[in-house]
């Protein structure tokens, strides 16, 4: 729905769902290929792409399943497309093998997972953040994931654009983890990138084909395999491979490939990490959350502050790689006494937090897994209970 208004910057203002915001974000980022399979609560993204892509010269396909969907977007990416898919729990599970494939062959793709309750069919129409760990560890083998998230409809738009930019920057799959609440609620959105002058476009190598090695170690540690059909004939394989893309099990090449894939992400964490702070400077009681849980936490902190309890929030925009450095710095500076991790699952995000603080600071987990959003008062009560304990 249009608000029929423009922002002061002259951008359109819309009143739409988070899922619809993802569609605008994808189109404005430069997405020109979508393949997907309908699943609640992400279907509006698939439907929105089917409306928008044909008219702008892109491709939309509804595939026979989610395995085919992710295979098609990786294939399209090999051919130079800026591609994405969207799904929820059961479909996300089906995609795992090929997420690892895209990572191994270094082809950029974007996967939006609007989380529902699980396991299995779970709670199709209800809220959950229970794929937090699956997004990190879902595919088999050693793997370094980039996972971004959002806690409002505006952010769903922004994060989708960012996901495409980061996928292209690091030539790797990027997962956007939303939850059902963010996907389905309606809020005001400013389409800030509607006239994007720099849509994501795949790079061509700067060397002639005879010198070209698709997987050579580059100065900035990122390789960008050339799109098919541009004269750079090479091999893509999910087997461990050498710089030319040929399978290899030579020890040093295996180690080199595995480290390269990890380092290209881990050495650029500062570029990837994104988070927001609320009242953290003096936060004796620090809450860590993302998505809809972070919305509840913001409310809780207002209440706590009114009670003169020094609560603060780090709201994650990057879930993985986990922003351990900024979090530990903020907690140290604020001399935080207790850390609370609020999440809509039985305890997942709490694990990396525990890893940071091991025994130095107490960590409590605030969980809700009945398909409903966390209530700010649950957080307030939990904080009060534990600080006076």
């Amino acid at each position: 729905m249009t608000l029929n208004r423009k922002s002061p910057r002259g951008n359109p203002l819309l009143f739409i769902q988070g899922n619809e915001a993802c569609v605008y974000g994808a189109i404005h980022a430069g997405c020109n290929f979508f393949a997907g399979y309908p699943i609640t609560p992400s279907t509006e993204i698939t439907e929105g792409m089917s409306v928008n892509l044909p008219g702008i010269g892109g491709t939309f396909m509804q595939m026979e399943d989610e395995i085919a969907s992710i295979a098609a977007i990786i294939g399209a990416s090999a051919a130079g497309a800026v591609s994405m898919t969207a799904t929820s729990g059961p479909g996300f599970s089906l995609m795992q093998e090929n997420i690892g494939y895209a990572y191994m062959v270094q082809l950029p793709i974007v996967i939006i997972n609007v989380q529902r309750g699980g396991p299995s069919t779970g709670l199709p129409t209800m809220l959950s953040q229970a794929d937090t760990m699956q997004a990190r560890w879902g595919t088999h083998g050693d793997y370094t994931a980039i996972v971004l998230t959002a806690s409002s409809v505006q952010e769903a738009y922004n994060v989708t654009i960012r996901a495409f930019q980061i996928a292209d920057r690091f030539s790797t799959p990027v997962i956007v983890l939303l939850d059902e609440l963010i996907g389905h609620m309606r809020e005001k959105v400013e389409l800030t990138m509607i006239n994007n002058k720099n849509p994501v476009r795949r790079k061509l190598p700067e060397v002639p084909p005879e010198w070209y090695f698709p997987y050579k170690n580059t100065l900035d540690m990122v390789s960008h395999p050339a799109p098919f059909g541009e004269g750079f004939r090479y091999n893509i394989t999910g087997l461990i491979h050498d710089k030319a893309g040929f399978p290899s099990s030579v020890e040093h090449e295996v180690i080199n490939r595995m480290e390269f894939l990890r380092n290209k992400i881990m050495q650029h964490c500062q570029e990837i990490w994104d988070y927001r702070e609320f009242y953290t400077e003096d936060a004796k009681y620090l809450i860590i959350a993302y998505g809809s849980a972070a919305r509840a936490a913001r409310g809780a902190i207002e209440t706590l502050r009114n009670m003169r309890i020094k609560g603060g929030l780090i709201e994650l925009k990057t879930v993985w790689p986990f922003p351990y450095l900024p979090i530990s710095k903020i907690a140290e500076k604020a001399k935080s006494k207790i850390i609370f991790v609020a999440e809509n699952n039985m305890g997942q995000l709490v694990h990396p937090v525990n890893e940071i603080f091991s025994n130095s600071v107490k960590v409590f987990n605030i969980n809700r897994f009945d398909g409903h959003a966390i209530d700010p008062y649950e957080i307030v009560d939990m904080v009060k209970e534990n600080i006076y304990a």
Partner: protein
Amino acid sequence: MHELSDVYSYLRWKKRFPAVWCPGCGIGSIMGAIIRAIIDLEIPKDDIAFISGIGCTGRMPVYLDFNTMHTTHGRALPFATGIKMHRPEMKVIVVSGDGDSLAIGGNHFIHAARRNIDITMILVNNSIYGMTGGQVAPTTPIGKVTHTMPYGNYEPPFNPVELAVSAGGSFAARGTVFSILQTTGYIKKAIKHPGFALVEIISQCPVQYGRMNNLGSARDMLLMQKKNSVPIKKAKEMSEEDLDGKIITGIFKEEIKTEYSSAYRNFAKEIRDGTGREDSP
């Protein structure tokens, strides 16, 4: 005939040989046939995307000087679909084992055929899972022994050609490694055909299938292919009983009908030009 040096120029042969395949395996002959078909059709190497799944057959792309992609088990067709849809001007060729294309990838197979997307599908039918060491495939004949059918197979096999045709594929042929020249002709026709084009090639796996079923050497297995082959025309006059265990060869279907990627382009153009249906977005 093709000069050997011409064929060699299509191989990444300085880098990748000797190949992984066992001595006597039919996959090498099929690779040669594909190269010869492409030489005859004079398609530039840069215009070919050559995609495989996983298996002995799946190892073919690495040897060939095209845009090559060795994907995941069973998924070559949806990967190829993505490539074809983004670059419709490319010739997209998929090679796939019988397990790859009909078991784990069976759903993708019928849907690619249903869409009639312009992909050439070379299905290497060796009646077995070669790479994993000889387990039953959806093409293993009843009674044959495999490592997971130690008492003889009791599952009826697929007929890949019939499957492709009934799902909507517009070209389907079957050849053998023994009659490799004839098979090369089918491959050529399939590559030229605008639509989903299947060439099923009966191949020998002497090391797994042959050994477990006492079929002798690769040479013996090739002679069996010769003995059992019946051209489609002759087969029409034979009874079902007489056809039992026979390999019917020839072109089963060749029809021009709406091709998916060009249909999509036309539809998208109509939407861009505003000449699409009234209710289109």
